[in-house]
Every structure is written in structure tokens, then in C-alpha cells.
């Protein structure tokens, strides 16, 4: 029942999107250590409340988005492109 406002396509039903994981995880460089990769692959916090998540607009423009969603209420806050170049372009036009 969630709706996500894709910065490219506009407000759409969540069925057009695919959840893509925790957007607060910073993936290390490919040649980083096993320890660093272990943190990135397996360690997740499980916050109650606002959270940043990746959503892929799979059945839309196929943008990867960073969506602020409240894990308690499913309320969706800020939605922006995951790609920093696109994000900057949006900010520039705003």
C-alpha cells in the first residue's frame, strides 16, 4: 500500500518497485579485507523508526533510489536518486 515518489516518474505504487536492501551500508573497495567485507555483507542494524533503504524502480525507469521509510509506520519520507550525479542534477534544477 506504500507509494513512493520516484524523482523521475512521480508518485507510484510500491508494486512497481523492488526492495534493494539497507542504504546506509557503505560497501568497501573491492580489494578491502575480509573483515571489512564481512561487516558490509552481514552486519545490519534493525532500526525501529526512520530508515534509509534502497528501492529499485524495477517496473518503471529502473532507477535505484534511496527511500526514507519508517519501519514502524511504513511512512515514506524523502526519496532521491542513489546515483550522486543524478541527485546533484535534481538539486540543481530544484
Amino acid at each position, binding site marked *: *500500500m*506504500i*507509494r513512493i515518489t520516484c524523482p523521475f516518474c512521480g508518485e507510484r505504487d510500491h508494486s512497481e518497485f*523492488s526492495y*534493494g536492501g539497507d*542504504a546506509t551500508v557503505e*560497501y568497501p*573497495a*573491492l*580489494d*578491502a*579485507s*575480509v573483515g*571489512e*567485507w*564481512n561487516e*558490509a*555483507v*552481514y552486519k545490519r542494524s534493525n532500526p525501529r523508526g526512520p530508515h534509509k533503504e*534502497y528501492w*529499485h524502480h*524495477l517496473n518503471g525507469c*529502473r*532507477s*535505484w533510489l534511496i527511500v526514507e521509510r519508517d519501519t514502524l*509506520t*511504513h511512512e515514506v519520507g524523502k526519496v532521491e*536518486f*542513489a*546515483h*550522486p*550525479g*543524478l541527485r546533484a542534477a535534481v538539486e540543481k534544477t530544484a
Partner: protein
Amino acid sequence: MSGYRLDDGGLINRDNPLTFTFDGKEYTGFEGDSLASALIANGVDVVGRGFKYHRPRGVMSAGVEEGGALLTVGGGRFREPNTKAPVQPLFGGLVATAQNAWPSVQMDVGRINDVMKRFLAAGFYYKTFFGVRGGTKDWMLFEKIIRKAAGMGRASREPDPDSYETAHAACDVLVVGSGPAGLAAAKAASDAGKDVILAEQDFVLGGSYLSRPGGIDEAVGAIDALRIAGVTIMPRTCVFGLYDSGVAGLIEQVSDDPGLHGVRQRTWIVRPREIVLATGAIEQPLAFGNNDRPGVMQAGAVRTYLNRYAVAPGKRAVVATTNDSAYAVAADLVAAGVGVTLIDAREIGPDAPDGVKVMRGMVPIRTKGNYVLKGVEIGTLDDEGYAAAHDTLDCDLLAVSGGWTPAVHLTSHRGPKPVWNDTIHGFLAGTTNEAIRTCGAAAGVYDHDGCIASGEAVAQGEAGPQPEEGANPAMPLYEVKSRGKKLKCFIDPQHDVTTDDVRLAEREGFVSIEHNKRYTTLGMATDQGKVGNVIGIAIMADASGRTISETGTTTFRPPYSPISIGALAGRGTYMHFRPVRRTPLHDWNLAQGAVMTDAGLWKRPWYFPTDGESMDDAYIREMKAVRSTVGLCDVSTLGKIMVQGPDAGEFLNRVYVNGFGKLAIGKARYGVMLRDDGIVYDDGTVWRMSETDFLMTTTTANAAGVMAKLEEFLQTRWPDLKVQLTSVSDQWAGIAVAGPKCREVLQAVTTECDLSDEAFPFMGIREARIAEADVWIARISFSGERAFEVYVRGGSANAVMDALWDTARPIGGVLYGTEALGALRIEKGHVAGSELDGRTSLDDLGLGGMASSKKAFIGKAMSEREGMRDPDRLQLVGIAPVDSDKRLRAGALLDSRSDMVDQGEGFITAVTDSPDLGHWIGLALVKGGLKRWEGKEMISFDPARDGNTAVRVMSPHFFDPKGERMHG
């Protein structure tokens, strides 16, 4: 109960009689009747049998809370069990049957259960069958018998022939309920310029208007005003749940007549800005002896039958009440010519209506009668709340009012727990910060004028009238206890839960209301506790010495009323649920006699039988031809992704374990990619068409997943890379041309491309033209033979395939399907989906040598984890039966001991009969792999099919291990 039709009045069309049957007997009702009102009008008193004890049951209510009259409507494929007779509109030709009764409701063999009652108390399942001697097997046998004896109607075993659909709507205000409060709220919201949808679960609008004398005319005026104002009115539409983001789920009953084959139900997903709940209140019963007997009915329901349906449910009535509301019922009964005695548990109360004998301070103790009601024993309550018998009154109708409880279910769906209110002795909706407001009886405002004022006020964002105690406060009485009498007092007539069950469960430690509910099944029937919950909670509170408020209530969850699964599925059934993907060569394959198989959503040729061949004969023949001459195979389902841009080479370097930056233009390379956690994800080939253009192929299964993953990498992790991705999976068809004569076939159809080994070496790619179409040809092999793959625009695929087949067929070529494709790859030890099972590493699959040591790639760090180097890991091996006549079976477990423990040492992933080797072979994953097992024997365990087979472990590269055939 000996009901009959009144001479006039009611919202029925006496000019349109409708014939229907109940248990094979024909009856007549009128348009406007419910199934229940028509049955009562025909004097039918027993309409079903209880769930556990098979006691006779009659109509108990006039709404969705019905606990007695649950009938099966329709037959055969159209059979709909557990239909509540009071909410089923009568239609001509309706066929209804009683449930849970054999051979008939009058003489039901299962009645014996009533005598056995003490063995069927709360939790008897658990007590009787916990740790039964024979274990699960015996339990399953008993369960079958018990389920047959206890239960409701039976659903049809045939596919649902009806159609359903889903619709979407949006509005400013959704008003739920069309009683006085709902109509007033809808009008007020509409007058304020808002776009309003009014949903009413009943097939007639008006709610409690319809139960009042003359109320129908009042309602008609109010409804007409809404129509004129442009309110969207949806009768027979139940708001079954409220969900996140302010979404309401509605089910509209579009049609009853299964013969029409139109849409039966429609699910509405409505997004209102505000929701106004005018869902009314549900009258509560009282717990007293044999209060389930046919003839006992909610007092308010009696009024509905009298005024809305012009039906008197009895000839001689007793009205038992704890509050003022039932006095109007008594007055309406008198007006209909029914003799009435009203017993009020209180010493106070309104003046006796004309013609009504009122006895104050009196409660019903138990009903009398055989099957149906003949009388009621009444008495007075002492200081401790026990009743002492006073008299027995003859009656065939006992109208009971134990007070009212607001229908707060929908608000509860959003989380807030209902809150007990001592003024109305009922639960009110908890507070929510969502735009959901409650008015009228649902908010505890019970008087008619108050409801209208409440609806108007709440729709305008004001508080409106609040619950009031009134001049004669209602008595909070839930149960009539009697010293020295064993009374069967039902509180959930659908699940046959009695007051004793609740008390017993409480004694046994189920003191939480949620636990008690599950142990006794109170409130778990199709009415979901609409009638029994409050009494149950009150008895729990009494037994545990707590207040009702402290005891709390169970959680109401959607749906408010039962809904069919078909309505939720909507049109998403069969091919709409699981769409079919066809390759551009689909029809071509079928025309050649292909037997198709499913590969995910794809249809792929499985094998091409000739002259009635079996599958085994066909795929062996196809394999032999590929190894000796040539075969053509539709490989269009492979994922195909264009990877383009100045950084495409670097990008591929990062996602594949092997290097791609230095791949020469005009060459292809096999690649393997890992997941972040170091497990093998997918494999395929990548073709370099120019400095900046690559075509990646993926496995059929992972085509969509790989595309999404690559997009994720580019947009979230490496946004600096200049790479463009385009899926061309659906645009391009692929044809494998495999076998020693593949070059001969291809050369005959493409003139400008030199296919000699010198000009077109192994892993080369070339542009060419076949049948006037542009194609890409790659010299790659999955079969282990010299082979090419031809890629062409989907629209030209048939022409290219025709050209290839016209050349291949005369020289003994074949078409081959996935069965031969899989068998050929097993002979070569190529891994596929059954080995890339999301648990295997590169080393496990013998692909460790592919990983580049000169660069980092996705999954590299994690593939070097300690656990990934465990010598006990399952690793790829080849196996063959020791006795070469034996066959192998995929999925069989492998172990070296004949007394295998747990899951053994490994399992077989894929098998085939190998025409080249003359016996069965298989691929397997075993602990320690070849290093531990090569040359050794294991036992293949397959108890459900062939039993045990001795196998020898060997290299998985069974056929042409050096690859001389494909390199040429």
C-alpha cells in the same frame, strides 16, 4: 420459533415472489427478503447444527454477526459454504442446504456429541491427543474423524467458476455504513464540497433506519439527497480492512447468480483522504442456560425482521433485557400482534409500552423445549449475582438484549487497541493520529437523533455528541449464574464455546485473553467474536478477579467479514497469475513437433519426438546426432545484456572473477560472477564487438536478477563508471548450431563470413548475414562439440532457423531440446542451475582456476573466508554406477556407509544416460570432492524410487576432457 409473514409493511416486493429451496424443500419468499427472513417467514426454525455438539440452531441475528444460520448456498462448482443467511439476499432459484448435519437437521446422528460434552471441553485436542501412542500417524487418523464430525460447510473441490476483478478508486472521504450517522456524515462531507464514497455492506442502504417503524421512508429521503449531491454510493460493499497509507480494502458483491458468469465480486483498493466510520454497534447476547436454542434471537434482530422484512419470528415472545433498547422491540412486537412479556434485569426502566407485560428484576435462567424453544425459566438475581428461579414463561421467541458494543474493528486494524468504556459497558475505538474518525453507534452514541448529530459533526471535524448513560443506566450483566444447576451457556455459538470452557481455560493457566481465545477458539469462527467476545472477556475478568479494562481485548485484524480468496486474487489467476514467455521461435518449435517444458516463465522445447518416441529415446537420439552430425537448439531464453561505454571493460572486470579488460575485439570469453558473499551467482559468455560494446549473456534463470544487480552496481557503488546497460533478452533470438557438421550448415547459409578455423577460431565472434538478416555468430560451445551460436533480431528468427534447418536436415541433423542440452553438458561436466545453487563457491565447482589474481572483483574478499576453505565443503564430482546397467536419479543422497546418517556425504545434482559412454552418469556435490573420493565407491540412496545403487566417483569431465572436439 413459528415465524410467519405479516400482512403488510416491510421493504419487500410482494408482487415478485421468489422460489428457493432449503434442504431440498421448496419455499417462497419475496424480492427484498434475506435468505434468513424468507426461512423465518416460512416457519423454518432449525436451519443447522452446532459445530461440536450438533445442537439444533436457528437464525440468531439479522447481520454479519450471525452465529446460527450458516448455510451452504449453491451446489457443485458453485457451492459456497458458511453463508450467513441474514446477509444473503434471496434470489429466485437459490438452493440452500444445512451444514454439519447428517442425515438432516431434524435427525442428526452427530447429536451424540452433545452427550459426550465433558470430553469435548476446551483444549480437548491437546489433552486427548498430546503424545498419543502411535505418534503422528495415529493423530492424523483421529484428526480426520474429528474434523468430519466437527466443522462447518464444505467448499467445492472443483475450481471456482466465477470471475473476480480488482478496481481502484480515490476520494476525499470514505464513509463506512449507511445508517443515520453514515448518511448524515456523507451528506455533511458532500455539502462541504468533498468527493465522497459511501460503502454499505448490506444490500439495502439505511442501516438501523430499516429496523424502525417508518424508518424506511426516512432513509429513502436521506439517500436520495446523497444521490443528488453526487455521492458515490456502493451497496453490498464491505470495507473489510484498513491498511497502511490510508488505504481501505472493499469487497463489492456484484452478482449472486452464478449462472450469469459475470463478475461475482470486485475488490476495491480505495485511497481516501479521510475515513469516517459509521459502522454501528452489535447487540450482545446474555449467557444463560441453553441460550443457543432455536427461537432465541438478538432483540434488535427481531425488530429488523418485523419492520424491514414484515416477518414475525414468533407468536408468543419474551423479551429479556439489561437496557432500554429492547422496549421498542416489545412495542413493535405488540404492534405486529405478537403477545409479549418483557423481563428487565434492572429494577428501573422506561414505562411499559402499551400491551406489554413488564417484569423488573428478572433474568432468563434457561430455556425450555426439545429441539426448539417452548419456554424460558426466569428468576431474580441475589446480591452475589446468582439467579433464583421464579417462574417459567411459555414462548416460541426469546428476544435478548445484553447491551451493545460498538463495531470498532476497522480502527483496530490500524493498531490502536479498543478501550473499555464504563458508561456504555463496551469497547470504543482507541485513539489514532490517522485521518480516521468514528461517529454514531460505532462511537457509543446510541440514540437515533444523536447518531445523526454525531455523523454531521464528525464529518465536519467536530466531536459531536458523546456516549451517555441515559435516564435508566444499562446493567452490565453478561452471564446468568445459577447455584446447583449445570447450565450450558453458549458465548460463541459458531464454535460452541461455553462459559465453562472459558473458566476452565482460565483455571488451566490461560489467563491472557489472547491465549484464552486460542485455547478455547472463542471468537475464532467466521464472525470473529462479534457476539461472544465481550462476554468472554467479562467472564475471564470475573474468573481472574480483574476488571474488563485490565483483562483487555483481543486484536481485531482484517477482514472484518469473511471474504473469498478469489476476490483477493482478482484476475490474477491461471495465465494472468503466471504469464507465459515465448521465444521468437516458439511457434516454429511447435510446428516441428516440440514437446515443451517450463523454464521459469519460459516455454522451451524439451525434446522433439519422431514416430511416437518416448522422451528417453528422443533425447538420446538428439544427443547422438549432435555428437555425430549437427543439432539446432533454440537458446533464445538466455539473458542478453548490452554493456556499452568507455568503462565497460573495467566494469566487466569488476563483476566477473576473470579478466575482461584485455578481451580482444571480435572475441568472446566465458565468465563467472560471484555474489558479494563469495558464492557463485551466474555464468555466461561476454562478446566484445568494439572497443566500447560488449554483449553479456546470462543464464535463463538469472537474466532479470543480473540486470538489476548490474544497475545497482553502476548507480550505487561505482557511479563514476561510464557504462550503459540495455537488456536485449527479448529482442534477440539465439540458435545453437552444434556438432561436427555445424560449419557445413552455417557456411551454406552465410556467404560473406569465412568460418574456417583460421578465420574464425574458437571463441571468435563475427557479424554476418543469414536469410537476408543481420546476425552475430559466436563460436562457443555448451555441448562440448564444435559449435556456433547465432543471434538475430527476434523478427528474423524464423527465417534464419528455416535456412539453417533446411540445410541441416538433409545431412542428418536434428532439432534438440533442453533434455539433450542438459545431457550434453553433464557429459562435459559443465555446471548449470542445479550446481549453481546459491551455496557453491568457485573452488567447489572446480572453477577456482578462473579467478584472476591480478585484480579485485565482486565476492573476492569473501570467497577467501575460512569457511570457504573448509575441506568438508560439498564439491563437484562425477559419478557412474558400478553396475553399468543401473540408472541414476537426481536428488539421491550419497554416502559411503550403508547405514547413512543425517543427509550423508553429498547428493546427486544431475544425471543422464550417456550414449557415448554406454551407461548412466551424473554430477554430484560431495564433502571433500574429488580429493577425498576420486576412484572410491559411494552408495546412492533413493528409497522412494530405485533403492540403493553403488556408484564410483570420478572426474566430472566424462567426455572429451581435453576439449579437442570443440577446439577443432
